[in-house]
């Protein structure tokens, strides 16, 4: 029996490939042969996770079916799922938890049979004649980096320390909560993204209410965009007071919200990037590959401050 090895399937979700391809480039580069050389590949069959703010909110049965379909793909490949988005993480992680319940797994499998699929979890060992299964592992880029590679490795790969850069870290809600699913950090004092920022040579600045929501989740951005933007701009003002050069987050949906909400500002906004983009910069990538021109807030001021580019 094969142990679930440390091999992965990229799960980029919807927002990254279709809105911020520079994040995809950064993640592939950091995890690829020029970087951490992870055993990771693409699946041609992944669909939307599906997005919790829509499907988990309106029909849990449909949400679980669609999420299970994605999990089966990873299960059959004996690979872990590597998410780069808090929403994908929350949706898929929660689905593995639901599927632990035999009744719920049976119900899902009765429908999945119509498309020739079955969720069992990953077989890890046999006890007598019985096979023991574990849920498909769903990982987030940030915790994978910190837990599996460690900060020393990140520091070692930092060719261009981002010495004079002041970063405001935004974690995003579904990376931290609910705590029964996302258990890698203390939800009241998360540190992993800050530590990556520091390992990249930059300074992580403290600011008021740093753990506040971006305002976009749960369909608020789609439903009442003014309200979502009001929350985001509040947070941006606090970040601005702290004198940050950029906002770094682990979630492309939070990124999209910060990026879009700042369009209404009369002055220049604060550039927003994914933690993988920051890491790629520290590892010496040419910023042109990071697709900053798809971001609404220009990264110009930030890039100018990076010496040597």
């Amino acid at each position, binding site marked *: 029996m094969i142990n679930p090895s440390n091999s992965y399937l990229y799960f980029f979700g919807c927002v990254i490939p279709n809105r911020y391809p520079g994040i995809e480039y950064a993640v592939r580069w950091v995890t690829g042969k020029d970087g951490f050389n992870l055993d990771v590949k693409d699946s041609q*069959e992944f669909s939307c996770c599906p997005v*919790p703010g829509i499907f988990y909110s*309106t029909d849990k049965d449909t949400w679980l079916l669609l999420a299970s379909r994605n999990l089966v793909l990873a299960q059959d490949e004996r690979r872990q799922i590597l998410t780069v988005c808090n929403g994908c993480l929350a949706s898929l992680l929660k689905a593995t938890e639901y599927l632990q319940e035999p009744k719920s797994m049976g119900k899902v499998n009765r429908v999945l049979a119509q498309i020739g699929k079955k969720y069992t979890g990953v077989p890890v060992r046999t006890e007598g004649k019985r096979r023991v299964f574990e849920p498909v592992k769903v990982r987030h880029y940030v915790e994978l980096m910190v837990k599996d590679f460690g900060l020393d490795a990140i520091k070692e790969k930092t060719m261009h320390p981002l010495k004079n850069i002041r970063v405001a870290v935004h974690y995003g809600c579904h990376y931290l*909560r*609910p705590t029964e699913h996302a258990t890698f950090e203390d939800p009241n004092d998360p540190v992993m993204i800050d530590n990556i920022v520091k390992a990249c040579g930059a300074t992580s600045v403290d600011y008021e209410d740093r753990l506040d929501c971006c305002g976009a989740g749960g369909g608020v951005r789609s439903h009442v965009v003014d309200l979502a933007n009001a929350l985001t701009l509040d947070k941006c003002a606090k970040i601005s007071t702290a004198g940050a050069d950029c906002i770094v987050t682990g979630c492309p949906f939070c990124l999209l919200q910060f990026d879009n909400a700042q369009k209404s500002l009369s002055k220049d906004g604060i550039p927003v990037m994914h933690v993988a983009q920051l890491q790629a910069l520290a590892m010496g990538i040419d910023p042109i590959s990071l697709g900053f021109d798809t971001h609404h807030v220009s990264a110009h001021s930030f890039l100018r401050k990076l010496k040597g580019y």
Partner: protein
Amino acid sequence: MKEVEKVFIGGLKEELMEDKVIDESQLAPGFAEEIKKYGGKDVMTCLQCGNCTGVCPISLKIDYKTRNIIKCCQFGLKKYILSTRWVCATCYRCYEHCPADLNPAEIMIALRHIAVREGIIPPFVKTAATNLVKYGQSVRPDEEIDKIRRELGLKPVHTHDPSFKSVIREIQVLVHASKYDKLIGIQEEVKV
């Protein structure tokens, strides 16, 4: 912020709190049970301590108070509840702070389940569901971005590949099997 506030003070607060007298005919008995059916915990165990409201980013900004919503659920004021906007960001802060372990965010989600079954379906839900059964993703593909992907040397998004049609079919089979197409009103998009 002024305009947002104006929009939200309507509905719940004015009708409920200022009328003061609630006619019995407006109550929906068994509302708490209905919430449980869709995965919410028992709203009757809410202590009305207000912790959820104190940590709610939305409650701090506008006149939408989590505690009031739960109180209305206890009364069975279904009509009022379902007319409020979907402004819970599902940040789960309330869940972390609820001494009754009620998980108010999940109650908001149960309320949305009830709302769509009463035919209250915000347009964005329909849009995202349509995108999913058409493209396999809830975000619509963008030609400009596809161009930038080529410039960066990235492969086209896998959902554009002709072989992805079989995945779209699988998604449509699942959406049809759970009757979600009928629930949301996207039957014409699902060809199973």
